[in-house]
């Protein structure tokens, strides 16, 4: 694996840690407001899950550790 790819993999690992923290939405613990027709505590986690699609796309795009043709670590 090349150094830049390995470094980006570590950065994305750290970003996963940040996302882990963002998932713990203590600010919605008792919030009864609604967003998009649903309780905000539910909407937040749905949007969070859908946002992960973009995150993992970027992870695969910029920190993919394998050569697509040979399958070996690049």
């Amino acid at each position: 694996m090349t150094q830049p790819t390995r470094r980006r993999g570590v950065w994305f690992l750290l970003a996963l840690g940040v996302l882990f923290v963002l998932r713990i939405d203590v600010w919605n613990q008792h919030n009864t407001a609604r967003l998009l027709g649903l309780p905000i505590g539910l909407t937040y986690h749905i949007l969070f899950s859908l946002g992960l699609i973009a995150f993992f796309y970027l992870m695969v795009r910029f920190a993919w550790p394998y050569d697509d043709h040979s399958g070996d670590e690049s």
Partner: protein
Amino acid sequence: MTIALLIGYLFVVLAIGLWSRRRLSNTGEDFFVAGRTIGPFVLLMSLFGTHMTAFALLGASGEAYREGIGVFGLMASSSALVVPALFFYVGTKVWHIGKSHGYLTQIQYFRDRFQADHLGLVLFLVLVGLLLPYLLIGVMGAGLTFEQITNGQIPYWVGSLTVCAVIFVYVTSSGMRGTAMVNTFQTLVFMTLGGLATVVIMSKLGGLGAVMDHLQTHQSHLLVRGEHISPALLVTYSAIPLSAGMFPHLFNHWLTARSAATFKGPIIFYPLCIALVWVPSVLLGMAGAVDFPNLQGPAANGVLIMMVEKHAPGVLGGLLAAGVFAAIMSSLDSQTLALGNMFTQDIVRHYRIGGEVSEAKQVWWGRLFIFLVLALTFGISLVAPRSIFKLGIWSFTGFAGLLPILIAALFWKRATAVGAYASVFTTAVAWLYFFSSGSKTIGTTDIMAVTAVIGLSSITMILGSLVSKPPGNLAKFF
């Protein structure tokens, strides 16, 4: 009508499984990991369908009935974050090593990586011990669901036996290739029908807004996480999806990928699949509190079926029932195949029982073990108490506790067999301690016991490795 649709569904499943047989070549690699030829879409569907048991539909709606919206954050968004990350960092590496060295099971890798034959046997026993209750829950769940959906016209044992028989036919006839194709179909079925059920039932109840207004007035605690799902629980529950890294059936599916790049789609779209299944389950569970406000204990787990019976009888009800079976069977088949694979590769082939095991003989043994596993599970399901459903979370806890061994084996050159033994032993002791205490959390806190099990397992893996000498074959793996 419901019974006819269910039987029709099972015939479709059988047809797909048997159709897949035409491409089967009689080798162990083809039977157990589909010759490592599975593409991205089928890999995504089979990984997701295998990982999501009936719990995602029935159990989650029951939990949402009791706990409300917090269930999604607790169980779904944690999986959406953790599982694709596991695929990225662990799954692709496992695939690469598996392909390079021809491994078909976890145990083969651990035996080779740590140069420890007996460690393989210990891990085999632990993994089988953790997987069997999980399998049993699926078979029992199938029987109970059959009985409930048909209002007792089909008794529990007939339902369980039917599902076991269908799985036996298509798994033994076409191995992983058929299992992956059937899983793809079943995953599409339960994802589609879950969404359809939500739309139909919500509109019958006056729309989403009316349901939320009703809950706001009568059961407002369901619309916030509140005190029943604390931040500590939300944080530590995230350790449960780590179990996916050690599930033998997911490991098997990882090895089926055509190339490393095949993982890209599953990694990106796994969170979407989670949302597509869990949002309907949670919403329908909460809507159940509008129609059936006083369900107590395990009865709440049947709320989804009750909602379907009340609001979507006839054809739609039968299709939705098929969706529930899709979720049950898409896990059961892969678990059964994984156990058949482990018995064949890690016991029969490894110890050369009956002499050298040819490729064709591997398939023969695999089929025999699949039959024995299903027969044993069905037999136990007839006498096991229904409290066994509580074992599900403990099965996850055990698998998660073993994950440090795999992480260390893949990424840490200094990891040794002594560390792995220490980790297995610690996981077993900690697991037994928390299991016998009967509490999923530590003491009176909201901290999940699984975090302590993983922590202790990791520490002993590190300490055990540091006090022993690494194996001399590192160049093979790093």
